[in-house]
């Protein structure tokens, strides 16, 4: 079962949920797709042994062959090429790697060369697979790394895979969630949390993936989240209470399920609840 953990906004406890779930489930791999700020390794402390570069193909233009006709500049939709003074200037950071410039060049002057935009590191924690991607500082395109991470999931033999998604609802979240069997939506009991949860719900609905909600820092305000979930027919699977000891453990970089048996058992039961959720939704579809 592939479980994606997401949240409408940052700072709700998404990584806490994802890492603890990966820790307590039997045979679960952890994949950190929050490539702009991967934090899961701080908690799972994996031994990382393989490092792979992720690159996208960008144009390299032969000055001998190029006649500066401007055809590639006209076709490039990303403003990654410009023509000035009989010269083509490249802006590789804006390039999406579509390859169109090499296709359209009448002089065959454009060759594609790889440009590194980040890395993927693989390792193990508790005998399970750990995978995360790191986008190089200043790079705008996270999606190619996420796609590579997600495509690597097929090779993982673990029974479960927990994906830690980027926050928000942009295209990088969609790339991370794409092949998941189910989603966990992490939220907080505040109007900001509720607002952003609604956006996450809209996202998983549009992708037709069954989901359950986890309320982090639950307090007496949790009612408003629960009322919303009832109205939307989405189950609240777990409430992590607001407690100083949990916050303190977190700030020390400890796993919140580590010395907390109640919480550990609740996380374990999440696996069963999610399986039920998937079965239920496949009955209807």
């Amino acid at each position, binding site marked *: 079962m592939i479980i994606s953990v997401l949240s409408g906004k940052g*700072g709700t406890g998404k990584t806490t949920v994802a890492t603890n779930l990966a820790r307590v489930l039997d045979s679960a791999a952890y994949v950190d797709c929050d490539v702009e700020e991967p934090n899961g390794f701080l908690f799972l402390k994996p031994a990382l042994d393989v490092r792979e570069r992720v690159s996208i193909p960008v144009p390299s233009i032969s000055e001998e062959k190029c006649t500066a006709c401007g055809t590639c500049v006209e076709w490039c939709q990303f403003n990654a090429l410009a023509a000035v003074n009989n010269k083509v200037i490249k802006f590789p950071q804006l390039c999406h790697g*579509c*390859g*169109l410039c090499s*296709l359209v060049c009448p002089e065959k002057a454009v060759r594609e060369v790889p440009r590194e935009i980040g890395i993927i590191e693989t390792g193990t924690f508790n005998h399970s697979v750990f995978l995360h991607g790191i986008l190089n500082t200043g790079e705008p395109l996270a999606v190619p790394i996420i796609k590579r991470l997600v495509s690597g999931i097929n090779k993982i033999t673990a029974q479960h895979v927990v994906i830690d998604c980027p926050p928000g609802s*942009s*295209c990088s979240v969609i790339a991370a969630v794409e092949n998941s069997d189910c989603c966990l939506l992490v939220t907080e009991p505040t*109007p900001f949390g509720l607002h952003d949860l609604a956006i996450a719900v809209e996202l998983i609905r549009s992708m037709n993936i069954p989901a359950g909600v986890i309320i982090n820092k639950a307090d007496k305000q949790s009612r408003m989240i629960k009322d919303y979930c009832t109205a939307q027919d989405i189950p609240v699977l777990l409430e992590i209470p607001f407690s100083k000891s949990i916050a303190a453990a977190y700030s020390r970089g400890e796993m919140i399920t580590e010395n907390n048996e109640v919480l550990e058992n609740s996380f374990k039961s999440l696996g069963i609840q999610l399986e039920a959720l998937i079965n239920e939704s496949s009955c209807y579809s």
Partner: protein
Amino acid sequence: MNQVAIVSGKGGTGKTSVCASLVELAGNKVVADCDVEAPNLHLLLNFKELWRRDYYGSKTAVMNRDKCRQCGKCIDVCRFQAIKNFTINELKCEGCAACVYICPEQAIRIEDTVTGETVLSKSGAGLFSHARLKIGADGSGKLVTEVRKNASDNAAEEDLIIIDGSPGIACVVIASITGCNAILIVSEPTLSGEHDLGRVLDLADHFGIRALVCINKYDLNPEMACKIERYCKNRKAEVVGKIPFDRDVGTSISRGIPVINMPESKAGAAIREMWELLTKGGLLNENCHSNGR
């Protein structure tokens, strides 16, 4: 007209709460929510929508099925796996136009796609310009520019425009602050808070915009707050307010009102004091653009 942007280096420093309170204090003024990817200001304002306008935030390929002869060249050329069964998946299409080029039947073209809406609303405090993005859509400097334009086009010359800026220092932030008379940076006394403050100050220097700083939750770490004050002094950025940690802020968010409307709120009182300093000192209305000479 005068414009001030409320910004922060990182998220979660209380930018939106401070912004909502300043909007209330400013009275009949114009406010723009330029935190377009995670807009929350509307949760703290009472407002009624006046109009919505489509926002064209991306380009995608559109196929004319009558012309398509299913040769499959487009599927082969697409590097984003966006075409399946001769249908273009809008969420995957990056609008590169490779399929447009390759199609022998000219059945595909690139079209601007609606990825959200810009909205103009009337709030108790004046006009409110904001935006709503669709699922899977990204914000951009273009959207921020449009939200600000909707605000300035509908503001009178004497109005003050208050902008809730994006966190960070990238494209959207630059689009939020250019042309402002001043920016108010909401900082917090943490290590990352100090670090991020420096980067926002660099940005303000670059654009020749007056930088004002308020330290939120300063009493959570008074030592660090002092350090930030000294740092601001060195950087010639004026600290205009120190807001204490106050549980009323959380309560006010839950009630959907600005914290200054909570009776006896310590944070509210500090924000009021800051507002007096800003207005009496004329910090928001003088033109402090560095001119070119």
